[in-house]
């Protein structure tokens, strides 16, 4: 849920990167962290296991400039992708303003992607949100690998709502900022719609 501080002239929004285990959610945040002006970002926090799998969440605070004298701050979160961390995923969706679904393009991960979208839908419902209405972007990651599904196939399986979608290779930064900008824009448009 966005937080508008009129006193300190700040608009704060929360974006969550969702998707199956090892799809590249953390990599998206790491790339953003590594390629953003130091003045525009805070510390990146990763609550990970000893084997570097996300345990609870990754967090990156980011400033995107000013709108009408108001600083815009985005709090980017990832969820733990592994199936058994569902309780944590649910918690992280609390107060979300926009969701990026990071899909793993590999053919043998298609089922995991579909399950993850279903899980997202359920967890959003539990928090009182609707996947059909919330600002939402789909990113098809790992486009550089072999044995990947076509974008058309992925779109049919994962993007029923026909929201903006992007091909990405998060390790190289391809599609990462495009995805971020697109979701930030959707979040602002939605904020404007609901507050006007």
């Amino acid at each position: 849920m966005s937080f508008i501080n009129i006193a300190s002239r700040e608009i704060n929004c929360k974006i969550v990167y969702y998707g199956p285990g090892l799809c590249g959610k953390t990599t998206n945040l790491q790339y953003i962290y590594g390629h953003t002006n130091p003045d525009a970002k805070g510390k990146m926090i990763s609550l990970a296991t000893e084997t570097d799998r996300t345990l609870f969440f990754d967090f990156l605070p980011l400033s995107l400039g000013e709108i009408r004298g108001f600083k815009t701050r985005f709090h980017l979160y990832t969820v733990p992708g592994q199936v058994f961390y569902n309780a944590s995923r649910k918690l992280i969706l609390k107060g979300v303003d926009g969701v990026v679904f990071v899909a793993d393009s590999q053919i043998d991960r298609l089922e995991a992607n579909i399950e993850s979208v279903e899980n997202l839908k359920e967890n959003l419902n539990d928090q009182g949100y609707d996947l059909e209405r919330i600002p939402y972007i789909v990113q098809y990651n790992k486009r550089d690998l072999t044995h990947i599904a076509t974008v058309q196939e992925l779109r049919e399986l994962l993007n029923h709502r026909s929201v903006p979608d992007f091909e990405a290779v998060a390790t190289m930064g391809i599609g990462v900022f495009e995805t971020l900008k697109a979701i930030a824009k959707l979040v602002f448009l939605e904020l404007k719609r609901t507050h006007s």
Partner: protein
Amino acid sequence: MSAPQLMFEEEFEEIQRVCDRLHNESNSKVVFIVDKNGQPIAASGELEDLDITSLATLTAGNIAATGGMASLLAEKEFSTQFHEGESSNIHIQIVGQRVILVVIFDQRSSLGLVRLRVRKTSEELSAIFDRLIAKAATPGISTPLDEITDEDIENLFND
């Protein structure tokens, strides 16, 4: 109970004053208030070299996880938490089911004193946040978003 979505100047100053007073009266290092979504609201004390944004997010994550445990045990919430370190301690209190009041203190204070002051402050903060939520829900209240155009949003991403 939902977290506040709008913060106005008047209430912000009031909350800041309450924070400052609690900081003094509890002999603590730092006092800060964060909403349940991890947005820092106000802070007071020795803030230099302290990453309040990260602390706020982790506090909210902590409260969310504890809340999850509470619901598994059919509890409404665990409203108070205390973490004891070698030189710093953290006292965390949920206020009015909406926001989180955090006090960081060292040997200059004590858990008893912090608890006492937090209890008193919580009631005061709860009343301010009730008022704030009611004010934000007033029909016709203007926000900066009223003036933002689609063009402003586009311009934000032109680099």
